[in-house]
């Protein structure tokens, strides 16, 4: 595949963004999903609605608010000054923050369903078998929710890689910093360079198919070996 150095760089930034975002989301969403799946508390429906908002909101709306929020006059500005820069907008860190919001439901939902499917009896039995709560979480909940984790990882990475509207608003397409593959593709089309656009689009298409194929194949294999439904 004859991609230009600039396109390779854009792909690399996108992959880095996707991996960093997904890792952070796994850490954040694990306790959050557990809490949402296993507890019933007042205000939970509203919280779940807010967390699911990125699923339905136009990405440009999200991007616009993030731009304001991350800019020098928003809360992100104070954070930036604390870190020694003027603004988080148009930076890789800003992009990570935007992606965290944008991709959160794609990591949260599979974890939540997986946690909700774990039988309370299994946890009770682990407790009377001598397992403390944290021990139960690592020795029982995570292994039994591994389907959910696989889906969360694949969906988190794939969705972040495909991000466009939010990146366009807050990224600014700085090569090596905030220009990701989807934005690079858009710029090729804008510039009338359809050959480059074709190549980059094909890479993104094949990568997406491969990831989903790997996920579904793994899930089928788990079912047929009967390790876990």
């Amino acid at each position, binding site marked *: 595949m004859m991609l230009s150095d600039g396109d390779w760089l854009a792909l690399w930034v996108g992959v880095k963004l996707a991996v960093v975002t997904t890792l952070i989301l796994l850490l954040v969403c694990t306790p959050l999903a557990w809490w949402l799946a296993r507890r019933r508390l007042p205000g939970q429906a509203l919280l779940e609605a807010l967390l699911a908002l990125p699923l339905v909101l136009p990405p440009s709306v999200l991007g616009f608010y993030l731009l304001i929020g991350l800019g020098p006059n928003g809360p992100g500005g104070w954070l930036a000054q604390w870190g020694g820069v003027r603004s988080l907008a148009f930076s890789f860190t800003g992009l990570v923050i935007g992606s965290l919001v944008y991709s959160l439901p794609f990591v949260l939902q599979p974890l939540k369903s997986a946690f909700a499917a774990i*039988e309370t*009896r*299994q946890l*009770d*039995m*682990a*407790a*009377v*078998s*001598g*397992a*403390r709560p944290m*021990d139960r979480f690592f*020795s*029982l909940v995570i*292994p*039994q929710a*591994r389907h959910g984790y696989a889906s969360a990882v694949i969906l988190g990475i794939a969705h972040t890689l495909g991000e466009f509207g939010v990146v366009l608003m807050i990224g600014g397409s700085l090569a090596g910093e905030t220009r990701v593959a989807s934005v690079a593709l858009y710029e090729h089309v804008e510039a009338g360079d359809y050959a480059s656009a074709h190549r980059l689009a094909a890479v993104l298409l094949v990568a997406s198919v491969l990831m989903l194929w790997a996920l579904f194949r793994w899930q089928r294999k788990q079912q047929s070996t*009967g*390790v*876990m*439904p």
Partner: protein
Amino acid sequence: MSLTFSLSGQVGPCRLQAQAQLAANGVTVLFGPSGSGKSTLLRMLAGLQDCDGEIRFGDQLWQTDDATLPPWQRPLGMMFQEPTLFRHLSVRGNLDYVVKRRGAAGDLDSVVSQTRIEGLLGRSVQTLSGGEAQRVALARALLAGPELLLLDEPLSALDHGHKQELLKMISDIARQVPVIYVTHDLDELLTLSRQVWLMEQGRIVARGKAHEELARLDGPLAQRGDATALLYGELGDYDNRDHLQAVTVAQQTFWLPAAQPVAGEQPVRLRIAARDVSLCRQAPQDSSILNIHPVQVAALREVGPGQAVVQLALGDQRLLARISSRSARELEVFPGTRLYAQVKAVALG
């Protein structure tokens, strides 16, 4: 080790309030209809269900007004109605899970052979039959090195053969470890129990020796259609020609059909269902019934339209007979009346 508790708690619409004391080894059956709070009480004892009150086990305080020992620190083994094997682990993995946390590894081989799961260790838990899965669950409960076993209707989903096999295992285990066994199945109560706690609507309404509670006419057990008396007797001669085993109860000889001489611990237990006992004024002659014994009426109670149950004294033991109210009237059955009991069927065990 003795267990003493006094607990109360609200679970959904039901209020549970129970206190009791459990001493030494053997099975105590917690018996009562569905929804009477048996499982909830067991979960409270295990620390899986919040409640108020106090639980003391030997010199350990499991629960007081201001502190609760969490379930993972109580020296318990537990079985639920469903085997509840850890589904992401193999059979071996399920056993190791407990061994690793409770550290009774030395017992692994003996527990595995005691529960006859040698051939199952490498299997995935998804491929086990119901009986196999419950045997693995029993092994896992034993590997916790429990000082008390809490068994919550563990056999209710099994067929008769597997049930008998596991009941035998549990009886054997109860020689070393006290067992609280929840069930609503009278057959399991008869097989297992020396002690019984009767539960109704969230309360323990009676506690006592199984054979006494079974025969108490003001208790719930004697009023059931399948009411059964338990008698204790000594093994006597074996009649080789007719394949009958003699068992002596209060100087009376009962004959039981047996393909070969019965051996085993003394005293043996006889089960006699109330509906297999009929009463006569005079000793019947030329009857096909082998076991006809003189008895004295101890008490009588109407238990339904036209039905009565009679408690009969045989020495210091008690037999039940379920007869029609008309027969009771015509035979003039009153406390103190001397009658003959014709016992149509007797079972050992």
